[in-house]
C-alpha cells in the first residue's frame, strides 16, 4: 500500500492532478480538459495521475529486475505509447459512435444519411491509422488532449472526404461538435486494465521483450492492483470552489503556482502563470512564499482562451499555433489581445493579405506584451524567472517572452519545464503534505465534486 498526497488544479480549460509521495517526490501526473464539466474533469485527472503513478512504480520494479533492468527504459516507452494508443482508440471508437448517433438523431433524409455514415467510416478509419503513427514508440503526440488531436485530424480528413463524397463539410463539423462534448463527458479510466493488457500484449510481441513476457505481465498486474492511501487532498484553480473540501483544503492558485514553482526551481523569485482565463505575475521569497502578485482584471485578453479562439477561427488545433507562428519571417504588429474580437481581427488581417504565420507571430507577441505589463506591475522580473501554466507549452510564446524579459530585465535564467502545466497541482499537493489538517483518506473519486449531475454521477460510478 502506497501513501500519497494529491493536488488537484481545476483550471478553466484543463484540470491537472499530481500525486506526491511522503518524501514530496512526484509519483504521478494527470491532465484532462475541463471545459465541459469540473466534476468529471477532476475525476479523470485524478485517475490519470494514479495510472501515471502506477507506471512510475512499474518502471522502478522493472529497473530493479536483474533480467529486465537494462531494457526497462525502452520497454516503458513501448508500454506507455501503447497504453496511450489504446486509450485514444477507445475514445475514437466512442466518438465515431456518437457522431453516428447524432446523425440519426437529426433524422437526416436518405441518401444523405448513408453518405454521412460512409464519410464517418472513412474519417475514423483514417484517424485510427493516424493514431498508430502518432502513438508509435519514439514519436510524441502533439498534444495531451484527445479533443485537440481529434479535432485537427478530423477536420483534415473531413476536408478530404468531402472531395470524394456528396457530403457537406459543415454537416460533418456539426456532428463532430455535438459528439465531442459527449465523449468528453465520459470517463474511460475504468478500462485501464484492458488498456494495460493491450499495451502488454503489444510490448511482449516485440522480439526484445518477448523472452521476459511472463515477468513483465506479472509486474504490470502487481502495480495495476496496488492500492493508494490518500493522506490528504488540496484543490486549487478556477473551479476549486466546486470541490466539497474543507476550507483548509482549498488554496488559491496564486499560492500554489508560487510554491509549485519554488519546488521545481528553488531559486526562482518571479513566476508568470498564463492560464486559460487568468494571467498572474507572482513574486516569491526563498521559501516559495508569495510576497506579491498581480493578475489580469475580469477581461481574459491575452490568456490561453484567446489562443483557443484563434485556433478555432483557423480550424486548427491549439497545439498547432505555436509551431506555425515560429515559421514567421515578418511578424505583423498587433496591439490588441481582445478575446471577443479575436476572430474579426484575424479575418481583417487575412483580408489585407497578411500570411497566417505572420499574423500568429504578432498575436503571440501581443500576448507576451500584456504579460510583461503585469510582470512590471507586480514588481518586475527577478532571477530566476519561471513560466508556468498551459500557455508555457507554446514555443512561440516562450521564445517571445524570453526575448522581452532579456530586453527589459537583462539576461537571466528562465525556467520552463515540461511539467510547467502541473505547477499549480504540484503546489496544491505540497500544501496537502505540509498542512495535513483535512485528512481525506479513502475519498472516492465520484465524491470529489459538489452536486454532480445525475448523468455524470452514473458515468463516474459505472
Amino acid at each position, binding site marked *: 500500500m502506497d501513501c500519497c498526497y494529491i493536488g488537484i488544479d481545476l483550471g478553466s480549460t484543463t484540470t491537472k492532478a499530481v500525486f506526491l509521495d511522503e518524501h514530496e517526490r512526484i509519483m504521478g501526473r494527470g491532465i484532462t480538459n475541463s471545459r465541459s464539466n469540473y466534476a468529471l474533469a477532476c475525476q479523470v485527472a485524478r485517475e490519470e495521475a494514479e495510472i501515471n503513478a502506477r507506471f512510475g512504480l512499474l518502471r522502478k520494479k522493472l529497473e530493479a529486475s536483474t533480467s529486465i533492468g537494462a531494457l526497462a527504459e525502452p520497454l516503458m516507452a513501448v508500454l506507455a505509447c501503447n497504453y496511450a494508443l489504446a486509450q485514444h482508440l477507445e475514445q475514437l471508437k466512442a466518438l465515431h459512435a456518437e457522431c453516428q448517433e447524432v446523425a440519426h438523431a437529426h433524422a437526416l433524409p436518405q441518401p444523405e444519411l448513408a453518405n454521412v455514415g460512409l464519410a464517418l467510416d472513412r474519417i475514423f478509419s483514417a484517424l485510427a491509422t493516424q493514431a498508430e503513427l502518432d502513438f508509435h514508440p519514439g514519436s510524441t503526440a502533439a498534444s495531451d488532449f484527445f479533443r485537440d488531436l481529434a479535432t485537427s485530424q478530423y477536420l483534415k480528413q473531413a476536408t478530404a472526404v468531402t472531395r470524394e463524397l456528396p457530403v457537406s463539410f459543415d454537416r460533418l463539423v456539426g456532428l463532430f461538435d455535438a459528439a465531442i462534448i459527449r465523449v468528453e463527458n465520459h470517463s474511460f479510466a475504468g478500462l485501464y486494465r484492458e488498456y494495460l493488457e493491450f499495451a502488454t500484449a503489444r510490448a511482449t510481441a516485440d522480439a526484445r521483450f518477448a523472452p521476459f513476457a511472463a515477468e513483465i505481465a506479472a509486474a504490470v498486474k502487481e502495480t495495476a492492483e496496488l492500492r493508494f492511501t490518500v493522506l490528504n487532498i488540496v484543490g486549487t484553480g478556477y473551479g476549486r470552489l466546486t470541490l466539497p473540501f474543507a476550507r483548509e483544503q482549498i488554496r*488559491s492558485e*496564486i499560492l500554489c503556482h508560487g510554491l509549485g514553482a519554488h519546488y521545481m526551481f528553488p531559486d526562482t523569485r518571479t513566476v508568470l502563470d498564463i492560464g486559460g482565463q487568468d494571467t498572474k505575475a507572482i513574486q516569491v521569497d526563498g521559501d516559495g512564499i*508569495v*510576497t506579491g*502578485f*498581480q*493578475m489580469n*482584471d475580469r477581461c481574459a485578453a491575452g490568456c490561453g482562451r484567446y489562443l483557443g479562439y484563434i485556433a478555432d477561427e483557423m480550424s486548427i488545433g491549439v497545439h498547432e499555433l505555436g509551431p506555425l507562428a515560429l515559421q514567421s519571417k515578418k511578424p505583423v504588429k498587433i496591439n490588441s489581445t481582445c478575446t471577443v474580437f479575436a476572430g474579426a481581427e484575424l479575418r481583417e488581417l487575412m483580408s489585407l493579405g497578411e500570411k497566417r504565420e505572420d499574423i500568429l507571430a504578432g498575436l503571440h507577441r501581443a500576448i507576451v506584451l500584456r504579460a510583461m505589463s503585469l510582470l512590471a*506591475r507586480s514588481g518586475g522580473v527577478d532571477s530566476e524567472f519561471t513560466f508556468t501554466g498551459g500557455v508555457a507549452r507554446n514555443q512561440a510564446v516562450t521564445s517571445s517572452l524570453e526575448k522581452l524579459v532579456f530586453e527589459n530585465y537583462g539576461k537571466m535564467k528562465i525556467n520552463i519545464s515540461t511539467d510547467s502545466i502541473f505547477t499549480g497541482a504540484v503546489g496544491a499537493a505540497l500544501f496537502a503534505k505540509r498542512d495535513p489538517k483535512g485528512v481525506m483518506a479513502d475519498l472516492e473519486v465520484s465524491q470529489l465534486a459538489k452536486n454532480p449531475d445525475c448523468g455524470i454521477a452514473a458515468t463516474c460510478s459505472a
Partner: protein
Amino acid sequence: MNAEVQKEESMVLQKKMIGEHFETLSKAGESGRKVVYTFVPGNLNELILAFDLLPVHPEVNALQSGMRKLSGDYIQEAEKQGHSEDVCTYVKCDIGMLKKGNIGPTGEKLPPPDLLLLSYTGCFTFMKWFELLKQEYGCPVVMLQVPYQAEGKITASQREFVARQLRDVVVPALEQVSGKKLDEDRLKELLASSARAEDDLVYVWESAKHKPSPIDAYFGGVYYIGPIFTAFRGLPSCEAYYRELRREVDYRIAHGMGPTTPEGELRQQKYRIVVEGPPNWTSFRDFWKIFHDEGVVMVASTYTKVGGLYEQGFRHDPARPFETLAEYCLGCYTNRNLPARVDIIAKYVEEYEADGILFNSIKSCNSFSAGQLMMLRELEKRTGKAGAFIESDLVDPRYFSAANIKNRLESYFQMLEAKRQAA
C-alpha cells in the same frame, strides 16, 4: 444574503435624519426653500446652512443608487445620451437619474438646483460634472478654486486665496440665491457644533486601535461619515448622531466586541487591514462579506477621509470662520499629493498595528487611482507589510467581477497567513 441586516441605534438615527432631509428637499418647491448642489470633498455645509439653504450631494445620490442596484440602468441611460463608457460612473449615474425623473434615494423627487456650488478639491471631473448640470438646469455655477496641495502642506497664501474667494465670490453668490445677508454669528455657532461632532468621530476612528477593533473603519466607516460629510454637519442632529455612535463603540470596547456587520458581529479578527480607495457600491454587501468570512477587520481607510482628515488634528474653528473653511477644503484627502497620501497610510499601518494594506483601484476614477500602484510599492517598502491590489468600480455593476476579486483577496489573505506562519 439571507441574513437580516442588524441595525444599531446610530443607524436608525441616521436613517431618520436622511429621510427627513429628503422629505424637506421634496417639498422645497412648496416651501420656497432654495437648493444648492455641491460635492462632499471640501463641502461648505456650515456656510450653506447659515443661509438656510438646502444642500444636495450628487455623488452621494449616485452611491446610494449603486447600493440600491439602480445605477446600472442610470448609467445605461446616460450612455444612451452619448456619454462614454469610460468616464466617471458617478457622473453618468447622476445624469441617468436626472433623465429618469430625478428620484432620490428615498423615492422622492429631488428639487432642481438654484445654485451649483463647485468646491473644487482634488477631483478634476467635478468641473465637467457641474458644467453638464448647468446645461440641464440652466442655473448659475459658482466655483471655489482650491489649490492642490502640491507641497504636501497648506501655505498661508493658499489659505488666504481660498478665504478671499469665500468672502468675495461664494458668500455674495449665496446671498443672492437666498436673498439673505450672511449672519456670521450663526455661521460660528454651526462651526462650533461641527467641531464637537468631529471630536466624537475622531474618538470612533481611534477606537480601532483596540484589539479586537470595535469598528470596521471602511465598510462600517462609510456609514459613520454619512452625517458629517453631507447635509448635517453643524446641526444638533449631527452632534447627537456621533454621541450615540461613540456610546455604542464604548459599549463594544467594554464588552470586548467586534463591529456589527450585515452578517452579524465580527468575532474572530484574524487580520487588521488598512484600505485605500473607495468601496464598490453595487456589490457592497458581497464585497464586505468576503472580508467578514475571512475574519478581516479594516482598522483605517482613506476613503472615509475624502470629506476631512479630522484625526490628523483638523477641527472647524468658529473663531476664524473663513480661514477654517479654507483649511478644511485644502486639507481633504483627495487634495493631498501622492507622498502625503503615502505618509497618511504608513501612519495608519503603524498606529493601528495593521497586518496589511489593500488598494481598491477604481476603473472609472482616474483622479483617485492614478499613482496608486506606486504608492503601494512605497508603502510595502516603508512598512514591510504586504499589499494587495484589486480593481472594481464605484457604481458600474459591469466592472465588478466577483470571481476575480474573490480570487485576489483569498490569495492575499492566504499569503498573509503563509507569511505569518513563516515568521
